[in-house]
């Protein structure tokens, strides 16, 4: 099961966080700080999976932005690693060349995309067109 899904920049600012288990807010900030510290201290030739407390972190870096996913032992690390990429590709498609600013200013949109892909800690949809479908409906409604 996926425990949480984070996007954090190199300065340690959280840009997106989605928890699939309830975590108190002050614990969230601590956890996010520790997680990003862990990721930042690693070099390119280290592996993308970190054992952290009783779960694993799977992370990928895109420019100055880290996407970090916390999982337990029932998930396949490599599959989650590619899930991150799939998510970023969906963002890229929707925002056409996504940047950190896109994510900051369209937080609701990013949430919708993530919620279409991961629900209750499980991968629910991987098909890009279907992930974006509700969002396109929403945009159309908003235009009118």
């Amino acid at each position, binding site marked *: 099961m996926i425990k949480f899904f984070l996007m954090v920049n190199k300065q340690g600012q959280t840009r997106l966080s989605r928890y699939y288990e309830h975590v108190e807010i002050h614990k969230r900030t601590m956890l996010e700080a520790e997680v990003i510290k862990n990721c930042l201290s690693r070099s390119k030739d280290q592996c993308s*999976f970190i054992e952290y407390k009783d779960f694993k972190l799977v992370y990928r870096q895109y420019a100055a932005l880290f996407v970090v996913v916390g999982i337990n032992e029932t998930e396949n690390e490599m599959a989650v690693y590619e899930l991150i990429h799939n998510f970023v590709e969906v963002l890229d498609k929707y925002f056409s060349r996504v940047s950190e600013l896109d994510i900051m200013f369209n937080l609701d949109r990013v949430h919708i995309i993530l919620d279409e892909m991961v*629900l209750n800690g499980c991968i629910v949809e991987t098909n890009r067109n279907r992930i974006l479908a509700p969002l396109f409906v929403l945009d159309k409604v908003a235009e009118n």
Partner: protein
Amino acid sequence: MCLGKSKEAEIKRINKELANIRSKFKGDKALDGYSKKKYVCKLLFIFLLGHDIDFGHMEAVNLLSSNRYTEKQIGYLFISVLVNSNSELIRLINNAIKNDLASRNPTFMGLALHCIANVGSREMAEAFAGEIPKILVAGDTMDSVKQSAALCLLRLYRTSPDLVPMGDWTSRVVHLLNDQHLGVVTAATSLITTLAQKNPEEFKTSVSLAVSRLSRIVTSASTDLQDYTYYFVPAPWLSVKLLRLLQCYPPPEDPAVRGRLTECLETILNKAQEPPKSKKVQHSNAKNAVLFEAISLIIHHDSEPNLLVRACNQLGQFLQHRETNLRYLALESMCTLASSEFSHEAVKTHIETVINALKTERDVSVRQRAVDLLYAMCDRSNAQQIVAEMLNYLETADYSIREEIVLKVAILAEKYAVDYTWYVDTILNLIRIAGDYVSEEVWYRVIQIVINRDDVQGYAAKTVFEALQAPACHENLVKVGGYILGEFGNLIAGDPRSSPLIQFNLLHSKFHLCSVPTRALLLSTYIKFVNLFPEIKTTIQDVLRSDSQLKNADVELQQRAVEYLRLSTIASTDILATVLEEMPPFPERESSILAKLKKKKGPGTVTDLEEIKKERSSDMNGSAEPASVNASAVSTPSPSADLLGLGAAPLTNSAPPPASSGSLLVDVFSDSASAVAPLAPGSDDNFASPDLASSEVVSEEPADTVHDADELFHKFVCKNNGVLFENQLLQIGLKSEFRQNLGRMFIFYGNKTSTQFLNFTPTVICSDDLQSSLNLQTKPVDPTVDGGAQVQQVVNIECVSDFMEAPILNIQFRYGGTFQNLSVKLPITLNKFFQPTEMSSQDFFQRWKQLSNPKQEVQNIFKAKHPMDAEITKAKIIGFGSALLEEVDPNPANFVGAGIIHTKTTQIGCLLRLEPNLQAQMYRLTLRTSKEAVSQRLCELLSEQF
């Protein structure tokens, strides 16, 4: 929103913004939908930055009832991110959800379902658990709604399984695996996997459906699945999920299904060898995700040697891959392969690569996996090489993993030692290289082994003596050296280079640099030297007599110095020789190091490995727990007695006699809550004359007395120490310890009167049945018990096989001319031979399933006899001897436990589950073990506790 550069500026900016939004929400002017949306979005962002949001919830709930999709959507988003499952708003939210679910508008339904799936409180489960399955299996439900409904149901099942009853929808859910829409299959597979773990029988049909679905995916051309193909890999995430689902079950029984699955797995392995369809890393990553999951399934089934060896070869290739991720995963996977008998040899062929990884990998987590794998692949044939490499690595290893490596080296060195001199060398090397990381268990253990094997004692003494020559040596070495020379220094004393005086001076040169416990140990070594080497007695006495010892600020050191000095002065050579006799061999027990490693690593690898290799027991001995020099000299049977047990021994007789009969046993039970002895039934009047009281006890039919003690007997099921029986004359206290299939019970008989008991004869009686399964040895006690005095009797216990009844303790004595005869049940019960086993939820339910034969399960539903307090219940389950497994049961109100009953002949794995029903004040207790009688007995014993 633009934020300031510094943290202070950010906080200032945010507070201002929050105030602004608050005033907008509170203002007289009604906000339009767009503004509401804008502000809620801002709140989300502020929350993300780690600031608590304590308002806006009501506004968000209001947005839910909007008919505009955009507003409704932002309302739901706010709630699913910010509202936790115990919010007071749930009822209002539920109302909105109910309306949206009934709206038949798929977009609205989707939002509502997402919200349930993400918040998923019990109240939501109560409101919607009946509705969701219907939506999920209805023919006219849209695919996207089905997807959401599946995960929604999964959430409700996880939070409140009792509210999601299995029903006719279950079979239809399984058929979702056949759904033509892969998104639906993806969502359904997650749901079915969780349901199947808990209800394997009901979801058995999912196996063949999953196999055929998987087969269609892996054999499809990369274009067949259109949008579900990811970089030329057909539906990788779904494939992974299906392979996971199959890991809930043993290999399919139906040969056709089994053949088809084997084909699938072969195809996946073959594809790994084909040239890649794309140069993109995403292609190979996705392909490998499926491959690793397929290998997991192959290992899980552990039945096809051909596939296992192929998997091993594939992983072998990955070990040398340039991608660190693959090397990491390959090492991890191979670790589980090493424990399969089919592939153990194949794994061993990669030893050089793995050793090389240990030396060259730049990532500590990869190196750690390499250590794990070396540990897993170790056997007699390669132990020397692996231990040497691990020792090498230890010199440069990261601090974070040193302790674990030390434990592993210690275990391997012991387990595969043919030549025990090698073992001794290895442990001393460990202390030299990583002394700080050598825990007590490790050095206790080396001492224990040396004491148990006389062929290595001389070598050990010589080696520690040499090691101690180093100008700076680790304190652990001083401990081991002190202990071994104290026991076996005489074996090397013939050599003038290690004469008694040189040995003593060498040890004493380290004395002042050591901590208090080590100094205490050294003092014990010195008194042992007095016995071993009478010629240096005066030198040692001088040291003991010095002010720094006799007036040491530390009580323990001072007491030892005083007592030892006295002992050396007054005791005759014979007495010294008896008191300071060489340690008797330790009973063979499970290695405490192994236990420690298991604890450190959690369940899984280590335990499984051990079980599969079945190499435990015989060469795994007990912990070198500080034991006494000589049992007869010991007054306190505490397991935490000091190393030589001499701390208080020589002074026993000078201890003040118990002041009053009331506090007779209190000191003995000082570590248990039962220090205040409960009064025996019928003794309300403490001043009743002894004669009256005795007339109650003197009974021709001991049955009555036995019955009286029943309640007390049950109290001992979950604890080891306390008062077993008490009347006006006599108090019987117990203190016992158990390890594996062995135990020792100290029975304390306290004479509460001021008159002597004569012909005092306690007898432990086993029925014929019991005699064959329980081996009890008792020593006779002194037939006279003075008034106010207490005598002790030791019972050594060995559990040969599982048993039902309890032995009877019969006590006869004469008191003031009357003959007293009473019997009590001695609380030696099967659960005392429990060893707790920690395991993950997955393991637990897997084993639970394996014990599904009706004869293996015993269940009891009973009324609570005590207040239903969760903490007390937990303590009782732990006291019962099993491990209490937290976060295993999906319902947090339930308790589950696991452990192994050790008997001489066999070990019986036991799982238990206790489900309290607060409303009805009832419990349901279920036990599953491999043996019916054991399930039955444990269930009886435990049912009495609540």
